[in-house]
Every structure is written in structure tokens, then in C-alpha cells.
């Protein structure tokens, strides 16, 4: 079954084409690693998929539903973790309270669901601590628990380990693998870490405004021509961004 179907998606911002004719599908149970240089349109792609931007052309279907119809049932089946942002240290909420935000309908099983999600991310013992007191890696795991507490069918992760130490990153990737294999959650994950994508993703989409490559992970990483072309395009994008920033 296809969880995500994107057909000829294009999006322009202030006269600049940010996404150009992107098409791909994701099968149930896949881990799709999305790679691309800074400014390639990864976050814009996610914003379109999550209904945060809707002035795009083309269609995006998640669980068979066009997301422009704003069907709440579909959005409740998606867990989303954005690029790491620091939780304000003084925000008065415990770990348990933050995870509870992910529950859409409160019932007798809510406590059990929260405990299970916290156990999965290894933070059950910390449930009564204030979330602002935790380390960056632990906070990210709290946000994962929040994203998965409602048992989502699709997890969208936008560079989730930026700013987290290496040990925590490895724990995080192992957790993703566990969620994918045990809970059958389909995962889309944007990353700059090619090594991690090679190890954990089942397929790869490489975008730089338009689709550069989409296929199985080994097809990308075992093809030296593709890797070379990718690093060249990343370098060009980096130079473009660098020049743009310095001119600005």
C-alpha cells in the first residue's frame, strides 16, 4: 500500500521556484531518507505535505486522501518532528505532560499509551521531570514520544538530530529502526548525514529543487557517478548560498 503519493508538486516563493515538478511515492513500512543541500526545498516539501503551505501546484495524497481537503483524520495519523529547536528551559511542563499533547482523544488508556511511548524512547523514569531540565538529546526523544504516542502511520522527521551528540544520534537512529520494524511506522526523514541514510533508510530521494534521484538506498550509494554528481550539486548549492549570504 502506498502511504504517500506526490505528483508533479511545484511551489514558488517570492518568484523563486523552490520545488519543481517533484513526484514520488512511499510504500507502507519504508524508511525514506531525503537528502539534498541546504536550500534544496526539503523543509518546504514537508510544509506542503503537512498542510502548512497550500499554494502549491500538483497533488499530495497521504493515506489516499488529498491533503488539501484538510481531513483531520489524516493529520492525526502523522507524527512530525521538526528541525531541532530548543524547548524553552522555563516552560512549565513535565515530560509526561508534553507527551500527552500528542494524544488526540483522552480516555482510560491514555496513561498507558504515554508510558509505552516513554518506555520506547527510554525516558519512562524521567516522566515527572520538567522537560526544560533535560539535555538536547533527551528533549528530542520526548518529542519523538509525543509524535508516536498516537500510534501514527507516518512519521515525518526534518533533520531531527542536528545539534545532538554522536552517541545520542546513534540511539536515535536505532529507535527509528525499532519504530519502523516493531510498530510498522512508515518514516520520511530529511538528513545531511549520508552515512546514517545509507545505514538506516530503505530508499532515498535526493532533491535539489527538482528530483535528482529516487530509488533504493543501495542503488544510490553503490553508484559512484550518482554520488559524484550529488556532491558536485551540493557544492554548487553551498557556493550559491555562500555568495548570496555575503552579498546580502
Amino acid at each position, binding site marked *: 500500500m502506498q502511504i504517500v503519493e506526490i505528483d508533479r508538486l511545484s511551489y514558488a516563493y517570492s518568484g523563486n521556484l523552490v520545488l519543481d515538478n517533484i513526484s514520488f511515492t512511499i510504500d507502507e513500512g519504508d524508511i525514506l531518507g531525503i537528502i539534498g543541500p541546504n536550500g534544496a526545498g526539503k523543509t518546504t516539501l514537508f510544509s506542503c505535505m503537512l498542510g502548512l503551505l497550500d499554494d502549491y501546484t500538483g497533488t499530495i495524497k497521504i493515506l489516499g486522501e488529498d491533503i488539501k481537503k484538510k481531513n483531520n483524520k489524516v493529520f492525526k495519523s502523522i507524527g*512530525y518532528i521538526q528541525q531541532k529547536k530548543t524547548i524553552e528551559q522555563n*516552560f*512549565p511542563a513535565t515530560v509526561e*505532560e508534553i507527551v500527552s499533547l500528542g494524544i488526540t482523544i483522552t480516555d482510560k488508556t491514555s496513561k498507558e499509551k504515554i508510558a509505552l511511548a516513554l518506555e520506547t524512547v527510554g525516558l519512562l523514569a524521567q516522566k515527572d521531570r*520538567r522537560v526544560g531540565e533535560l539535555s538536547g538529546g533527551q528533549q528530542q526523544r520526548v518529542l519523538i514520544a509525543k509524535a508516536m504516542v498516537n500510534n501514527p502511520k507516518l512519521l515525518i522527521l526534518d533533520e531531527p538530530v542536528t545539534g545532538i551528540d554522536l552517541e545520542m544520534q546513534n540511539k536515535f537512529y536505532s529507535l527509528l529502526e525499532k519504530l519502523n520494524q516493531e510498530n510498522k511506522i512508515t518514516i520520511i526523514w530529511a538528513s545531511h548525514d549520508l552515512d546514517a541514510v545509507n545505514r538506516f533508510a530503505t530508499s532515498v530521494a535526493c532533491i535539489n529543487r527538482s528530483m535528482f534521484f529516487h530509488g533504493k538506498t543501495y542503488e544510490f550509494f553503490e553508484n559512484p557517478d550518482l554520488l559524484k554528481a550529488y556532491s558536485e550539486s551540493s557544492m554548487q548549492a553551498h557556493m550559491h548560498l555562500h555568495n548570496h549570504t555575503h552579498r546580502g
Partner: protein
Amino acid sequence: MILEVLEFGFMQRALIAGISVAITSSVIGLFLVLRRNSLFGDALSHAAFGGIAIGLATNIYPLWTGLTLSILGAVGITKLRQYAKIPADATVAILLSSGLALGILLISLSGGFTLDLFSFLFGSIMLVSVEDTLAILAMTGIILSIIILLYRQLMYITFDEEQARVSGLPISKLNYLFIILASVAVIVSMRLVGILLVSSLLVIPNVTALLFNKGFKKTALISVSLSIFSVVIGIAISYAANLAPAGTIVLVSTAVFLTVLAARHYSKKKQIVKKLEEARS
């Protein structure tokens, strides 16, 4: 002596209305403080001032005209923020000064300040009527019921609006509902401390409660308790010493804040010394 005072009808009404206002303002204020919107209450109360002046000039019950203008102003500046991308603090300043200007204009047209207007500006908790007390109780009941019902959604928006939107929450509707509740809370609180001091009831107990470093529910409960404490002690002191109740309540609240702040500072210092001694031994 205390029991005798409590037999007075005006004192009973003052305490009932005061405690209701303490609960409402601290609950609404927690969300405002955490959204970095502490001065929003001030803007709402000043907009209400314009509305009250309209009510007094046209012989319509001023609390209703105040509430209407406060809600219209709040919805207006929310729309202004969304569409004109004007910073939040600037929109607050626009609403605050426009409401006050309207009030001043109407007062000058109707021949100056009246006793009624003074009671709205500086509060008149000892003068609340049975009707006022019942209205305050009803509004408190409505606000609390809605907040308890939507507590998790409002907390989610306060924690991270974008994530809340992605999860399918109707953010826009919830935000409008919240500012209407905040407007009602401000109108209710005005009876106690007046237009000029309303924001203190919304802000000070919550800032104090945040110093305890607890979770969301516990912070809300601490804030409500501190707010009730300040109102009851403030009313008692003002009665015993013949002081203005509004000012006394707010100063008690500030004293509680400073005490908690000092206690926290002392306890932190003590912990550092203890850790150093442990490290040395």
C-alpha cells in the same frame, strides 16, 4: 473580630467576587504569560475603558459595552497581526492607546469624570452588588469550564503553535476563542482592581508560580492559590487599615513574588555551597 466582619454582606460579596476573579485571572494569565503576551491584558482593559465610557454616555450597562469593545479590539488586533504582519507588541500599543483615547474623548464630551468611571478605573470590590457578584460567578464558571475542556489544546498551542497546527487542531478558532475568554476575564477582574491594575492579576501570580519550576497543572494550581491568597489578604489588610483594596491586593501579590524570588535565590545559593563542600570532602 474576623467572624464579625464576615457577617457583613458587602464583605461576603467582596470575598466571593474576589476569589472568583483571582481564579479566572490567574488561569487565563498563565497562557498569556507563556505566550509572551503579558501586556495583552492591559490592552484589553484599556479597550474596555473606551467601551465603558460609551456605556456611561449612552446609559447602557457599561460592563456589556466594555466587554463588546474589548472583544472587538482583541479580534481586530489579532487580524492585524495576521494580515499586516505587525509585531505583537506594536498591536498591543495600538489597542491600548486607542481604547484609552476613545474613553478620554467621550469623558470630555460628557463633562468629566464621574464616580462610576472612577470605580472602573481603580476598582471597587467593596461596592459589588449581589447582581455583580452573580454575574462574576457566572462568567467565572463559563471561563473555567471552557478552559478545563480545552486545556490540552490550549497548552499545545502555547507550547508549539506549528506542531499543534500540524496535529490537526483548529488553531485560528481556538485563538479567537481564547482572546474572547481573556476579554471576559479582564472585564470580570476590572471590578476588583480596576482598569489600570488588571494586568497585575493576570501576570504577577503566574510569574511567581513559574519560580517553583513545576509542571503545567501544578504551576496553574500554585498560581491560583497565590492569587486567592493575595486577594483575601489584600482585602483583609485594606479593610483593617482603611486602604484602597485594589492597590493593597496588587502590592500583597508583589510582596509574595519578591518573597518567593528571595527564597529561591537563597535555596540556590545553599545548594551551590553544599555541592562545593561535598566536592571538597
